[in-house]
Protein backbone atom coordinates (compact mmCIF):
# COMPACT_ATOMS: atom_id res chain seq x y z
CA UNK A 1 0.00 0.00 0.00
CA UNK A 2 1.32 3.41 -0.96
CA UNK A 3 1.24 6.71 0.91
CA UNK A 4 -2.27 7.51 2.10
CA UNK A 5 -3.08 11.15 1.35
CA UNK A 6 -6.82 10.81 1.92
CA UNK A 7 -8.22 12.20 5.20
CA UNK A 8 -7.36 9.61 7.85
CA UNK A 9 -7.38 11.39 11.23
CA UNK A 10 -10.56 11.27 13.28
CA UNK A 11 -11.35 14.59 14.97
CA UNK A 12 -8.90 16.63 12.86
CA UNK A 13 -9.60 19.86 14.80
CA UNK A 14 -8.85 18.16 18.10
CA UNK A 15 -5.63 16.69 16.73
CA UNK A 16 -4.52 20.06 15.37
CA UNK A 17 -5.24 21.73 18.70
CA UNK A 18 -3.21 19.05 20.53
CA UNK A 19 -0.34 19.52 18.08
CA UNK A 20 -0.22 23.27 18.69
CA UNK A 21 -0.63 22.81 22.44
CA UNK A 22 2.41 20.55 22.43
CA UNK A 23 4.44 23.47 21.07
CA UNK A 24 3.00 25.98 23.51
CA UNK A 25 5.77 27.81 25.33
CA UNK A 26 8.64 26.17 23.41
CA UNK A 27 11.46 28.29 21.98
CA UNK A 28 11.91 28.12 18.20
CA UNK A 29 14.85 25.72 18.60
CA UNK A 30 12.89 23.51 20.94
CA UNK A 31 9.94 23.52 18.55
CA UNK A 32 12.21 22.37 15.74
CA UNK A 33 13.59 19.61 17.95
CA UNK A 34 10.10 18.60 19.01
CA UNK A 35 9.06 18.29 15.37
CA UNK A 36 12.16 16.21 14.60
CA UNK A 37 11.40 13.81 17.43
CA UNK A 38 7.78 13.55 16.36
CA UNK A 39 8.76 12.78 12.75
CA UNK A 40 11.16 10.03 13.82
CA UNK A 41 8.61 8.47 16.17
CA UNK A 42 5.92 8.50 13.46
CA UNK A 43 8.36 7.24 10.80
CA UNK A 44 9.24 4.29 12.98
CA UNK A 45 5.55 3.58 13.51
CA UNK A 46 4.94 3.60 9.75
CA UNK A 47 7.93 1.35 9.21
CA UNK A 48 7.27 0.88 5.51
CA UNK A 49 10.41 2.08 3.70
CA UNK A 50 8.60 2.72 0.40
CA UNK A 51 5.90 4.78 2.10
CA UNK A 52 8.54 6.86 3.90
CA UNK A 53 10.26 7.58 0.59
CA UNK A 54 6.96 8.69 -0.89
CA UNK A 55 6.26 10.88 2.14
CA UNK A 56 9.68 12.53 1.85
CA UNK A 57 8.95 13.31 -1.79
CA UNK A 58 5.48 14.70 -1.03
CA UNK A 59 6.87 16.97 1.68
CA UNK A 60 9.71 18.16 -0.59
CA UNK A 61 7.24 19.08 -3.32
CA UNK A 62 5.57 21.63 -1.06
CA UNK A 63 8.90 23.33 -0.53
CA UNK A 64 9.33 24.26 -4.20
CA UNK A 65 6.21 26.45 -4.38
Amino acid at each position, binding site marked *: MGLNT*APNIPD*PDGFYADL*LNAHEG*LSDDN*SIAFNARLILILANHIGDRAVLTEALA*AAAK*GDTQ
Partner: protein
Amino acid sequence: MPLDDRYQLAFKLYPYERSTDQDASAPVRHPVVVVGGGPIGVATALDLGLQGIPVVLLDDHEGVGQGSRAICFAKRTLEIAHRYGCGQPMLDKGVIWNLGKVFHDDRQVYEFNLLPEQGHRYPAFINLQQPYFERFLVDRVREAQAQDAPIDLRGKNRVQAVEVKDDHVVLDITTPDGPYRIEADWLIGCDGASSPLRKMMGLDFEGRVFEDNFLIADITMKADFPTERWFWFEPHFKSGDSALLHKQPDGVWRIDFQLGWDIDRKEELKEENIRRRLDAMLGPDVDYELVWTSIYTFQCRRMKRFRHGRVIFAGDAAHQVSPFGARGANSGIQDVDNLGWKLGLVLNEKAPHSLLDSYDAERRYGADENILNSSRSTDFITPKSKISHVFRNVVLDLAEHHAFARPLVNSGRLSVPCVYDGFPLNTPDALPGGPARTRPGAPCPDAPLGQGFLLDHLGRDFVLLGVGADVQDQLEVDGMTLRGLSVPADADIADRYLGEASGAVYLIRPDQHVAARWPAFDEDLVRAALARAIGKD
Protein backbone atom coordinates in the same frame (compact mmCIF):
# COMPACT_ATOMS: atom_id res chain seq x y z
CA MET B 1 -28.28 59.03 33.73
CA PRO B 2 -30.19 60.32 30.68
CA LEU B 3 -31.88 57.88 28.32
CA ASP B 4 -29.91 58.94 25.27
CA ASP B 5 -29.54 56.38 22.52
CA ARG B 6 -26.13 54.70 22.44
CA TYR B 7 -26.60 53.68 18.83
CA GLN B 8 -28.70 54.57 15.81
CA LEU B 9 -31.76 52.52 15.02
CA ALA B 10 -32.34 50.57 11.84
CA PHE B 11 -36.02 50.12 12.72
CA LYS B 12 -38.02 51.86 15.43
CA LEU B 13 -40.26 49.00 16.52
CA TYR B 14 -41.35 49.57 20.11
CA PRO B 15 -41.58 53.32 20.83
CA TYR B 16 -41.94 54.34 24.45
CA GLU B 17 -45.46 54.18 25.81
CA ARG B 18 -46.45 54.87 29.37
CA SER B 19 -47.42 51.67 31.19
CA THR B 20 -50.13 51.50 33.84
CA ASP B 21 -47.39 49.99 36.06
CA GLN B 22 -45.93 53.50 36.24
CA ASP B 23 -49.06 54.78 37.93
CA ALA B 24 -49.54 51.84 40.31
CA SER B 25 -49.35 52.62 44.02
CA ALA B 26 -47.28 49.51 44.72
CA PRO B 27 -44.84 47.71 42.41
CA VAL B 28 -46.72 45.37 40.07
CA ARG B 29 -45.54 41.74 40.08
CA HIS B 30 -45.03 39.95 36.73
CA PRO B 31 -44.37 36.25 36.19
CA VAL B 32 -41.50 36.91 33.76
CA VAL B 33 -39.50 40.02 32.91
CA VAL B 34 -36.95 39.91 30.08
CA VAL B 35 -34.15 42.48 30.01
CA GLY B 36 -32.89 43.28 26.51
CA GLY B 37 -34.74 43.59 23.21
CA GLY B 38 -32.17 41.99 20.92
CA PRO B 39 -32.91 38.79 19.04
CA ILE B 40 -32.53 36.61 22.13
CA GLY B 41 -34.75 38.76 24.35
CA VAL B 42 -37.50 39.11 21.77
CA ALA B 43 -37.39 35.38 20.97
CA THR B 44 -37.69 34.64 24.70
CA ALA B 45 -40.74 36.91 24.98
CA LEU B 46 -42.23 35.28 21.90
CA ASP B 47 -41.64 31.74 23.15
CA LEU B 48 -43.28 32.47 26.52
CA GLY B 49 -46.04 34.65 25.11
CA LEU B 50 -47.06 31.95 22.63
CA GLN B 51 -47.40 29.60 25.62
CA GLY B 52 -49.81 32.11 27.15
CA ILE B 53 -47.35 33.18 29.83
CA PRO B 54 -47.43 36.93 30.53
CA VAL B 55 -44.04 38.45 29.80
CA VAL B 56 -42.72 42.01 30.00
CA LEU B 57 -39.66 42.91 27.92
CA LEU B 58 -37.60 45.97 28.86
CA ASP B 59 -35.19 47.61 26.43
CA ASP B 60 -33.38 50.92 26.80
CA HIS B 61 -33.86 51.71 23.10
CA GLU B 62 -36.98 51.78 20.95
CA GLY B 63 -36.02 49.30 18.29
CA VAL B 64 -33.28 47.52 16.44
CA GLY B 65 -29.77 48.92 16.13
CA GLN B 66 -28.10 49.52 12.80
CA GLY B 67 -25.48 47.26 11.31
CA SER B 68 -25.65 43.83 9.74
CA ARG B 69 -23.73 42.23 12.68
CA ALA B 70 -24.73 38.54 12.95
CA ILE B 71 -25.35 37.76 9.30
CA CYS B 72 -25.33 33.94 9.19
CA PHE B 73 -28.40 32.16 10.50
CA ALA B 74 -28.21 28.38 10.69
CA LYS B 75 -30.85 25.84 9.88
CA ARG B 76 -31.56 25.09 13.53
CA THR B 77 -32.27 28.77 14.18
CA LEU B 78 -34.66 28.86 11.23
CA GLU B 79 -36.41 25.72 12.48
CA ILE B 80 -36.89 27.34 15.87
CA ALA B 81 -38.12 30.55 14.23
CA HIS B 82 -40.50 28.43 12.17
CA ARG B 83 -41.98 27.05 15.37
CA TYR B 84 -42.48 30.64 16.52
CA GLY B 85 -44.16 31.42 13.19
CA CYS B 86 -41.53 33.66 11.60
CA GLY B 87 -39.12 31.32 9.80
CA GLN B 88 -40.64 31.80 6.37
CA PRO B 89 -40.13 35.59 6.07
CA MET B 90 -36.50 35.07 7.13
CA LEU B 91 -36.02 32.43 4.46
CA ASP B 92 -37.78 34.58 1.85
CA LYS B 93 -35.55 37.56 2.58
CA GLY B 94 -32.31 35.67 3.20
CA VAL B 95 -29.58 34.69 0.77
CA ILE B 96 -28.92 30.96 0.50
CA TRP B 97 -25.35 29.85 -0.10
CA ASN B 98 -23.69 26.44 -0.27
CA LEU B 99 -20.28 26.90 -1.82
CA GLY B 100 -17.26 28.14 0.08
CA LYS B 101 -13.84 28.86 -1.40
CA VAL B 102 -10.62 29.13 0.54
CA PHE B 103 -7.66 31.06 -0.82
CA HIS B 104 -4.09 31.46 0.37
CA ASP B 105 -2.26 34.43 -1.10
CA ASP B 106 -3.32 34.33 -4.79
CA ARG B 107 -4.14 30.64 -5.00
CA GLN B 108 -7.38 28.77 -4.37
CA VAL B 109 -6.53 26.12 -1.81
CA TYR B 110 -9.79 24.25 -2.07
CA GLU B 111 -13.53 24.69 -2.12
CA PHE B 112 -16.26 23.06 -0.09
CA ASN B 113 -19.94 22.55 -0.67
CA LEU B 114 -22.22 22.46 2.35
CA LEU B 115 -24.18 19.93 0.28
CA PRO B 116 -27.29 20.24 2.36
CA GLU B 117 -29.05 16.94 2.90
CA GLN B 118 -32.33 16.80 1.00
CA GLY B 119 -35.66 16.56 2.75
CA HIS B 120 -35.40 19.49 5.15
CA ARG B 121 -37.67 22.54 5.11
CA TYR B 122 -34.75 24.90 5.74
CA PRO B 123 -31.30 25.19 4.12
CA ALA B 124 -28.06 24.78 6.08
CA PHE B 125 -27.61 28.55 6.32
CA ILE B 126 -29.00 31.85 5.16
CA ASN B 127 -27.29 35.20 5.19
CA LEU B 128 -29.53 37.93 6.56
CA GLN B 129 -28.71 41.24 8.20
CA GLN B 130 -29.41 41.05 11.92
CA PRO B 131 -31.88 43.99 11.89
CA TYR B 132 -34.14 42.02 9.51
CA PHE B 133 -33.92 38.95 11.73
CA GLU B 134 -34.96 41.04 14.73
CA ARG B 135 -37.70 42.82 12.81
CA PHE B 136 -39.28 39.55 11.71
CA LEU B 137 -39.32 38.44 15.35
CA VAL B 138 -40.97 41.68 16.47
CA ASP B 139 -43.46 41.49 13.57
CA ARG B 140 -44.40 38.06 14.86
CA VAL B 141 -44.76 39.43 18.39
CA ARG B 142 -47.20 42.05 17.06
CA GLU B 143 -49.18 39.36 15.25
CA ALA B 144 -49.25 37.19 18.38
CA GLN B 145 -50.33 40.17 20.51
CA ALA B 146 -53.25 40.71 18.12
CA GLN B 147 -54.22 37.12 18.94
CA ASP B 148 -54.01 37.91 22.66
CA ALA B 149 -50.52 36.60 23.41
CA PRO B 150 -49.66 38.39 26.69
CA ILE B 151 -46.42 40.05 25.53
CA ASP B 152 -45.57 43.60 26.58
CA LEU B 153 -42.58 45.23 24.82
CA ARG B 154 -41.47 48.37 26.63
CA GLY B 155 -39.06 50.65 24.77
CA LYS B 156 -36.97 53.29 26.55
CA ASN B 157 -37.23 51.35 29.79
CA ARG B 158 -33.77 51.03 31.27
CA VAL B 159 -33.12 48.84 34.28
CA GLN B 160 -31.16 50.92 36.77
CA ALA B 161 -30.97 48.53 39.68
CA VAL B 162 -32.03 45.03 40.65
CA GLU B 163 -32.61 43.51 44.02
CA VAL B 164 -32.58 39.73 43.89
CA LYS B 165 -34.74 38.06 46.55
CA ASP B 166 -35.23 34.37 47.22
CA ASP B 167 -38.55 34.18 45.40
CA HIS B 168 -38.61 37.27 43.18
CA VAL B 169 -36.60 40.17 41.78
CA VAL B 170 -37.26 43.89 42.25
CA LEU B 171 -36.39 46.14 39.32
CA ASP B 172 -35.89 49.89 39.30
CA ILE B 173 -36.55 51.26 35.85
CA THR B 174 -35.86 54.64 34.25
CA THR B 175 -38.14 56.00 31.53
CA PRO B 176 -38.64 59.33 29.77
CA ASP B 177 -41.45 59.90 32.33
CA GLY B 178 -39.19 59.16 35.26
CA PRO B 179 -38.52 56.08 37.37
CA TYR B 180 -40.81 53.27 38.46
CA ARG B 181 -40.48 49.89 40.07
CA ILE B 182 -41.78 46.43 39.18
CA GLU B 183 -41.25 42.92 40.49
CA ALA B 184 -40.65 39.68 38.61
CA ASP B 185 -41.04 36.08 39.66
CA TRP B 186 -38.38 35.29 37.10
CA LEU B 187 -35.93 37.63 35.40
CA ILE B 188 -34.29 36.66 32.11
CA GLY B 189 -31.08 38.54 31.22
CA CYS B 190 -30.68 38.89 27.45
CA ASP B 191 -28.89 42.22 27.52
CA GLY B 192 -25.88 41.28 25.44
CA ALA B 193 -22.15 40.68 25.84
CA SER B 194 -21.62 43.71 28.07
CA SER B 195 -24.76 42.83 30.08
CA PRO B 196 -25.49 45.64 32.57
CA LEU B 197 -27.62 43.15 34.53
CA ARG B 198 -24.66 40.81 34.95
CA LYS B 199 -22.56 43.73 36.15
CA MET B 200 -25.24 44.96 38.56
CA MET B 201 -25.28 41.50 40.08
CA GLY B 202 -21.49 41.43 40.24
CA LEU B 203 -21.26 38.14 38.36
CA ASP B 204 -18.17 36.77 36.64
CA PHE B 205 -17.63 36.60 32.87
CA GLU B 206 -14.25 35.07 32.28
CA GLY B 207 -12.41 33.68 29.30
CA ARG B 208 -9.91 34.38 26.65
CA VAL B 209 -9.27 37.68 24.88
CA PHE B 210 -8.05 37.46 21.30
CA GLU B 211 -5.65 40.25 20.47
CA ASP B 212 -6.90 41.14 17.05
CA ASN B 213 -9.13 43.67 15.34
CA PHE B 214 -11.45 42.98 12.44
CA LEU B 215 -12.79 45.65 10.13
CA ILE B 216 -16.27 45.07 8.72
CA ALA B 217 -17.28 46.88 5.57
CA ASP B 218 -20.78 46.33 4.20
CA ILE B 219 -20.90 47.61 0.64
CA THR B 220 -23.23 47.62 -2.32
CA MET B 221 -21.65 47.13 -5.71
CA LYS B 222 -22.41 46.08 -9.20
CA ALA B 223 -20.00 43.21 -9.60
CA ASP B 224 -20.32 39.62 -10.64
CA PHE B 225 -19.19 37.84 -7.51
CA PRO B 226 -21.16 34.64 -7.08
CA THR B 227 -23.24 33.83 -4.00
CA GLU B 228 -20.42 32.00 -2.24
CA ARG B 229 -18.34 32.41 0.88
CA TRP B 230 -14.79 33.40 -0.06
CA PHE B 231 -12.10 33.37 2.57
CA TRP B 232 -8.49 34.46 2.06
CA PHE B 233 -5.56 33.65 4.28
CA GLU B 234 -2.76 36.23 3.78
CA PRO B 235 -4.43 37.64 0.65
CA HIS B 236 -2.26 38.86 -2.21
CA PHE B 237 -4.10 42.20 -2.18
CA LYS B 238 -2.66 42.87 1.29
CA SER B 239 -5.83 44.42 2.72
CA GLY B 240 -5.54 42.38 5.90
CA ASP B 241 -4.01 39.21 7.34
CA SER B 242 -7.21 37.50 6.28
CA ALA B 243 -10.30 38.58 4.38
CA LEU B 244 -13.85 37.35 4.00
CA LEU B 245 -16.40 38.09 1.28
CA HIS B 246 -20.01 37.11 1.81
CA LYS B 247 -23.29 38.12 0.20
CA GLN B 248 -26.28 39.57 2.04
CA PRO B 249 -29.78 40.56 0.87
CA ASP B 250 -30.42 43.94 -0.82
CA GLY B 251 -27.27 43.58 -2.97
CA VAL B 252 -25.06 44.14 0.08
CA TRP B 253 -21.71 42.40 0.46
CA ARG B 254 -20.05 41.78 3.82
CA ILE B 255 -16.28 42.15 3.71
CA ASP B 256 -14.12 41.50 6.76
CA PHE B 257 -10.42 42.36 7.05
CA GLN B 258 -8.18 41.16 9.85
CA LEU B 259 -6.16 44.19 10.94
CA GLY B 260 -3.98 42.90 13.76
CA TRP B 261 -3.75 44.17 17.33
CA ASP B 262 -1.84 47.45 17.30
CA ILE B 263 -4.01 49.70 15.21
CA ASP B 264 -5.28 53.25 15.37
CA ARG B 265 -8.98 52.52 15.43
CA LYS B 266 -10.09 56.03 14.53
CA GLU B 267 -7.64 56.20 11.65
CA GLU B 268 -8.68 52.80 10.27
CA LEU B 269 -12.34 53.80 10.30
CA LYS B 270 -11.74 56.83 8.08
CA GLU B 271 -13.50 56.31 4.78
CA GLU B 272 -10.38 56.85 2.67
CA ASN B 273 -8.52 54.15 4.58
CA ILE B 274 -11.38 51.68 4.30
CA ARG B 275 -11.62 52.44 0.60
CA ARG B 276 -7.89 51.88 0.18
CA ARG B 277 -8.28 48.33 1.48
CA LEU B 278 -11.42 47.69 -0.58
CA ASP B 279 -9.86 49.07 -3.77
CA ALA B 280 -6.88 46.77 -3.36
CA MET B 281 -9.20 43.80 -2.99
CA LEU B 282 -11.83 44.59 -5.62
CA GLY B 283 -9.60 46.21 -8.22
CA PRO B 284 -9.79 49.72 -9.64
CA ASP B 285 -12.84 49.20 -11.86
CA VAL B 286 -15.42 48.25 -9.27
CA ASP B 287 -17.84 50.96 -8.16
CA TYR B 288 -19.22 50.52 -4.66
CA GLU B 289 -20.99 52.36 -1.84
CA LEU B 290 -20.20 51.92 1.84
CA VAL B 291 -23.33 50.90 3.77
CA TRP B 292 -21.95 50.26 7.24
CA THR B 293 -18.49 49.93 8.72
CA SER B 294 -17.25 48.87 12.12
CA ILE B 295 -14.20 47.50 13.87
CA TYR B 296 -14.66 44.68 16.31
CA THR B 297 -12.54 42.71 18.71
CA PHE B 298 -13.73 39.57 20.39
CA GLN B 299 -13.40 37.25 23.30
CA CYS B 300 -14.40 33.70 24.09
CA ARG B 301 -15.88 33.55 27.57
CA ARG B 302 -18.91 32.49 29.54
CA MET B 303 -20.47 32.88 32.95
CA LYS B 304 -19.70 30.09 35.41
CA ARG B 305 -23.42 29.54 35.82
CA PHE B 306 -26.34 30.79 33.71
CA ARG B 307 -28.93 30.42 36.46
CA HIS B 308 -28.67 32.45 39.65
CA GLY B 309 -31.81 31.64 41.60
CA ARG B 310 -34.62 33.64 40.03
CA VAL B 311 -32.33 35.25 37.46
CA ILE B 312 -31.42 33.37 34.28
CA PHE B 313 -29.03 34.55 31.58
CA ALA B 314 -29.21 33.72 27.87
CA GLY B 315 -27.40 34.62 24.67
CA ASP B 316 -24.31 36.86 24.62
CA ALA B 317 -25.04 37.97 28.19
CA ALA B 318 -24.20 34.42 29.27
CA HIS B 319 -21.56 33.47 26.73
CA GLN B 320 -19.53 35.13 24.01
CA VAL B 321 -17.65 33.52 21.12
CA SER B 322 -15.49 34.70 18.25
CA PRO B 323 -17.51 35.22 15.09
CA PHE B 324 -15.95 32.34 13.14
CA GLY B 325 -18.59 29.68 12.67
CA ALA B 326 -21.61 31.92 13.28
CA ARG B 327 -22.06 30.58 16.78
CA GLY B 328 -23.19 33.76 18.55
CA ALA B 329 -26.81 34.52 17.71
CA ASN B 330 -27.38 30.92 16.62
CA SER B 331 -26.41 29.57 20.03
CA GLY B 332 -28.46 32.27 21.77
CA ILE B 333 -31.58 31.13 19.93
CA GLN B 334 -30.85 27.58 21.09
CA ASP B 335 -30.73 28.95 24.65
CA VAL B 336 -34.23 30.36 24.19
CA ASP B 337 -35.41 27.10 22.67
CA ASN B 338 -34.08 25.22 25.70
CA LEU B 339 -35.32 27.65 28.35
CA GLY B 340 -38.80 28.49 27.04
CA TRP B 341 -40.58 25.21 27.66
CA LYS B 342 -38.83 24.58 30.96
CA LEU B 343 -39.79 27.96 32.36
CA GLY B 344 -43.31 27.42 31.01
CA LEU B 345 -43.68 24.10 32.86
CA VAL B 346 -42.25 25.59 36.07
CA LEU B 347 -44.59 28.60 35.91
CA ASN B 348 -47.56 26.32 35.26
CA GLU B 349 -46.49 24.19 38.23
CA LYS B 350 -46.08 21.07 36.10
CA ALA B 351 -42.37 20.73 36.85
CA PRO B 352 -40.07 21.46 39.79
CA HIS B 353 -37.82 24.54 39.81
CA SER B 354 -34.86 22.19 39.47
CA LEU B 355 -35.83 21.66 35.82
CA LEU B 356 -34.27 25.08 35.24
CA ASP B 357 -30.93 23.72 36.43
CA SER B 358 -31.01 21.48 33.36
CA TYR B 359 -31.14 24.65 31.24
CA ASP B 360 -28.02 25.80 33.03
CA ALA B 361 -26.21 22.48 32.53
CA GLU B 362 -27.27 21.81 28.94
CA ARG B 363 -26.60 25.29 27.66
CA ARG B 364 -23.27 25.64 29.46
CA TYR B 365 -22.30 22.48 27.62
CA GLY B 366 -23.52 24.08 24.38
CA ALA B 367 -21.55 27.24 25.13
CA ASP B 368 -18.39 25.24 25.83
CA GLU B 369 -18.74 23.40 22.54
CA ASN B 370 -19.18 26.69 20.70
CA ILE B 371 -16.27 28.32 22.50
CA LEU B 372 -14.03 25.33 21.74
CA ASN B 373 -14.90 25.37 18.05
CA SER B 374 -14.67 29.10 17.59
CA SER B 375 -11.39 29.30 19.56
CA ARG B 376 -9.85 26.65 17.32
CA SER B 377 -10.97 28.54 14.22
CA THR B 378 -9.52 31.74 15.64
CA ASP B 379 -6.23 30.02 16.42
CA PHE B 380 -6.03 28.81 12.82
CA ILE B 381 -6.99 32.15 11.28
CA THR B 382 -4.76 34.22 13.58
CA PRO B 383 -1.73 32.06 14.54
CA LYS B 384 -0.26 33.16 17.85
CA SER B 385 3.30 31.88 17.48
CA LYS B 386 5.90 31.35 14.78
CA ILE B 387 5.46 27.58 14.84
CA SER B 388 1.65 27.75 14.69
CA HIS B 389 2.01 30.11 11.74
CA VAL B 390 4.32 27.61 10.02
CA PHE B 391 1.88 24.75 10.63
CA ARG B 392 -1.04 26.86 9.41
CA ASN B 393 0.69 27.78 6.17
CA VAL B 394 1.93 24.28 5.39
CA VAL B 395 -1.59 22.94 5.97
CA LEU B 396 -2.82 25.47 3.39
CA ASP B 397 -0.03 24.49 0.95
CA LEU B 398 -0.66 20.78 1.37
CA ALA B 399 -4.44 21.25 1.09
CA GLU B 400 -3.98 22.41 -2.48
CA HIS B 401 -2.60 18.99 -3.50
CA HIS B 402 -3.62 16.53 -0.82
CA ALA B 403 -7.12 15.75 0.42
CA PHE B 404 -5.85 14.79 3.88
CA ALA B 405 -4.91 18.36 4.75
CA ARG B 406 -8.29 19.86 3.84
CA PRO B 407 -10.13 18.84 7.00
CA LEU B 408 -7.40 20.66 8.94
CA VAL B 409 -8.12 23.98 7.21
CA ASN B 410 -10.30 25.90 9.63
CA SER B 411 -11.88 29.18 8.56
CA GLY B 412 -14.86 28.56 10.85
CA ARG B 413 -16.77 25.40 11.76
CA LEU B 414 -20.33 26.40 11.05
CA SER B 415 -22.89 26.28 13.81
CA VAL B 416 -24.79 23.06 14.36
CA PRO B 417 -27.01 22.39 17.38
CA CYS B 418 -25.36 20.40 20.13
CA VAL B 419 -26.43 16.95 21.26
CA TYR B 420 -27.14 16.81 25.00
CA ASP B 421 -25.35 13.50 25.42
CA GLY B 422 -25.54 11.96 28.86
CA PHE B 423 -27.61 14.69 30.54
CA PRO B 424 -30.07 13.79 33.29
CA LEU B 425 -33.26 14.56 31.35
CA ASN B 426 -32.45 11.80 28.83
CA THR B 427 -33.49 8.21 29.21
CA PRO B 428 -30.68 5.93 27.97
CA ASP B 429 -31.04 4.79 24.37
CA ALA B 430 -33.27 1.70 24.15
CA LEU B 431 -33.61 1.40 20.37
CA PRO B 432 -31.25 -1.29 19.08
CA GLY B 433 -29.94 -0.36 15.62
CA GLY B 434 -31.33 3.20 15.86
CA PRO B 435 -29.40 5.94 14.01
CA ALA B 436 -26.82 7.80 16.11
CA ARG B 437 -28.08 11.15 14.84
CA THR B 438 -31.43 10.68 16.62
CA ARG B 439 -30.08 9.28 19.90
CA PRO B 440 -31.44 10.71 23.16
CA GLY B 441 -30.22 14.29 23.55
CA ALA B 442 -30.07 14.94 19.79
CA PRO B 443 -32.17 17.56 18.01
CA CYS B 444 -34.70 15.92 15.68
CA PRO B 445 -33.65 16.08 12.05
CA ASP B 446 -36.37 17.27 9.70
CA ALA B 447 -37.86 15.00 7.02
CA PRO B 448 -40.67 15.29 4.48
CA LEU B 449 -44.08 14.27 5.83
CA GLY B 450 -47.22 14.44 3.71
CA GLN B 451 -47.40 17.86 2.08
CA GLY B 452 -45.12 19.38 4.72
CA PHE B 453 -42.34 18.36 7.06
CA LEU B 454 -41.97 16.31 10.21
CA LEU B 455 -40.77 19.22 12.36
CA ASP B 456 -44.05 21.05 11.65
CA HIS B 457 -45.65 18.48 13.95
CA LEU B 458 -43.08 18.46 16.74
CA GLY B 459 -42.31 20.99 19.44
CA ARG B 460 -44.19 23.28 21.86
CA ASP B 461 -45.35 20.27 23.90
CA PHE B 462 -44.09 16.74 24.51
CA VAL B 463 -44.82 14.44 21.60
CA LEU B 464 -44.82 10.68 21.44
CA LEU B 465 -43.74 9.92 17.90
CA GLY B 466 -44.40 6.47 16.46
CA VAL B 467 -42.39 5.69 13.36
CA GLY B 468 -43.83 2.58 11.75
CA ALA B 469 -45.24 1.84 15.21
CA ASP B 470 -48.59 2.75 16.74
CA VAL B 471 -48.88 5.16 19.63
CA GLN B 472 -51.93 6.47 21.47
CA ASP B 473 -53.38 9.79 20.24
CA GLN B 474 -52.94 11.18 23.69
CA LEU B 475 -51.80 10.10 27.09
CA GLU B 476 -52.46 11.91 30.36
CA VAL B 477 -49.43 11.96 32.61
CA ASP B 478 -49.34 13.96 35.84
CA GLY B 479 -51.74 16.60 34.55
CA MET B 480 -49.83 16.91 31.28
CA THR B 481 -51.18 15.75 27.96
CA LEU B 482 -48.69 13.84 25.89
CA ARG B 483 -49.58 14.20 22.22
CA GLY B 484 -49.27 11.06 20.10
CA LEU B 485 -48.25 11.12 16.45
CA SER B 486 -47.93 8.05 14.26
CA VAL B 487 -46.10 8.47 10.98
CA PRO B 488 -45.35 5.99 8.21
CA ALA B 489 -41.78 4.75 7.94
CA ASP B 490 -41.12 6.54 4.63
CA ALA B 491 -37.72 6.83 3.02
CA ASP B 492 -36.18 9.85 4.80
CA ILE B 493 -38.01 9.32 8.08
CA ALA B 494 -36.96 5.64 8.13
CA ASP B 495 -33.38 6.58 7.33
CA ARG B 496 -33.21 9.24 10.06
CA TYR B 497 -35.33 7.62 12.79
CA LEU B 498 -35.23 3.84 12.29
CA GLY B 499 -31.83 2.86 10.98
CA GLU B 500 -31.84 -0.92 11.33
CA ALA B 501 -34.93 -0.98 13.56
CA SER B 502 -38.28 -2.00 12.04
CA GLY B 503 -40.25 0.43 14.18
CA ALA B 504 -39.60 3.04 16.83
CA VAL B 505 -41.33 5.17 19.45
CA TYR B 506 -39.70 8.50 20.33
CA LEU B 507 -40.41 10.81 23.23
CA ILE B 508 -39.67 14.30 21.93
CA ARG B 509 -39.21 17.39 24.08
CA PRO B 510 -40.93 20.69 23.32
CA ASP B 511 -37.59 21.95 21.94
CA GLN B 512 -37.58 19.05 19.44
CA HIS B 513 -34.73 17.22 21.17
CA VAL B 514 -35.08 13.47 21.67
CA ALA B 515 -35.70 12.52 25.32
CA ALA B 516 -36.05 8.75 24.88
CA ARG B 517 -36.66 6.07 22.25
CA TRP B 518 -37.77 2.44 22.19
CA PRO B 519 -38.64 -0.23 19.60
CA ALA B 520 -42.34 -0.17 20.64
CA PHE B 521 -44.84 1.64 22.84
CA ASP B 522 -44.76 0.73 26.53
CA GLU B 523 -46.86 2.99 28.72
CA ASP B 524 -44.83 2.49 31.89
CA LEU B 525 -41.57 3.28 30.15
CA VAL B 526 -43.07 6.37 28.53
CA ARG B 527 -44.40 7.64 31.87
CA ALA B 528 -41.03 7.14 33.52
CA ALA B 529 -39.17 8.85 30.67
CA LEU B 530 -41.53 11.82 30.72
CA ALA B 531 -41.13 12.25 34.47
CA ARG B 532 -37.38 12.19 33.97
CA ALA B 533 -37.54 14.68 31.08
CA ILE B 534 -39.32 17.25 33.25
CA GLY B 535 -36.92 16.88 36.14
CA LYS B 536 -39.20 14.83 38.38
CA ASP B 537 -36.94 11.82 38.52
